[in-house]
């Protein structure tokens, strides 16, 4: 059965709750988990005055990393409390679905676990775009955890 779950987390409440349920599932299956957060890479054209910000990229990476850690650490703690072996990854990629599908392949994960909506999920009846794209790109099963009230 499933031995290694890849759990995607974008910091939103639905994805936090989905991550916890994924860890619960891993606990029951005695599987290990890898938690992943994907951030947009640094783009100089996103800045209004690039020349004034020589340290911008370094600052950006630092800030994103700090934010990602603030999402991933509590999940790692929760995994530890459930006796689940957990690792976490923070990846920079313009296309989160690609990073998730590729990481699943590279890390040998046999199940991708994610929420039906993350940050950009606005309409409760529709599937989030990242989730939908992961579903179309993944080569392993994907468990889509619905946000309550969705």
């Amino acid at each position: 059965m499933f031995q290694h779950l890849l759990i995607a987390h974008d910091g939103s409440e639905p994805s936090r709750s989905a991550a916890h349920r994924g860890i619960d599932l891993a606990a029951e299956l005695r599987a290990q988990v890898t938690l992943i957060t994907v951030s947009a890479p640094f783009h100089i054209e996103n800045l209004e005055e690039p020349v004034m910000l020589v340290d911008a990229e370094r600052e950006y990476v630092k800030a994103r990393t700090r934010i990602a850690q603030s999402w991933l650490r509590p999940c790692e703690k929760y995994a530890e409390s459930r006796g689940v072996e957990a690792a976490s990854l923070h990846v920079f990629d313009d296309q989160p679905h690609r990073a998730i599908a590729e990481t699943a392949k590279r890390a040998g994960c046999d199940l991708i676990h994610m929420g039906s909506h993350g940050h950009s999920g606005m309409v409760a009846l529709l599937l989030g775009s990242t989730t939908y794209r992961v579903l179309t790109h993944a080569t392993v099963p994907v468990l889509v955890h619905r946000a309550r009230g969705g």
Partner: protein
Amino acid sequence: VFKRILAPTDGSIASMQAARAGVDLARELGATVIFITVSKPWSVFSLDPIVLSVTNEKKYLEDTARVAGVRLQACEEYARSQGVNARSVHIYEEPVWKAIVEEARNLQCDLIHMAAHGRRGGVALVIGSTTGKVLTHAPAPVLVHRGEATVPR
């Protein structure tokens, strides 16, 4: 975490593989599996070849029940071989996704376990229309299973 798994099957290889994988997961979790097959209701005005191929309602119901029965029994037998508690339902409703969502709710299933696409899913990279609709309307988490069948990319 999951105690009652709904496993829809339309008889396609992908859906039968998914049903077996659902049983394997249920075995690990000590869950019950409910297999479900949805057939189109009889209609004199139907344009569907399967419905049109028979001449009367009684015959249609008999045929579809027999086909669904064979399929569901195969699933139940696999579940039994794995020591997993299972039962099945065969219902007549259209559209199929709606029936799956409603039954998941009625039967209080906490996971829907299904293939990325069934009989009509031609392209491996997209999600079948029924699976897509179930994903957007499901009252419970949905595990989308990928078949082992290799598809040229």
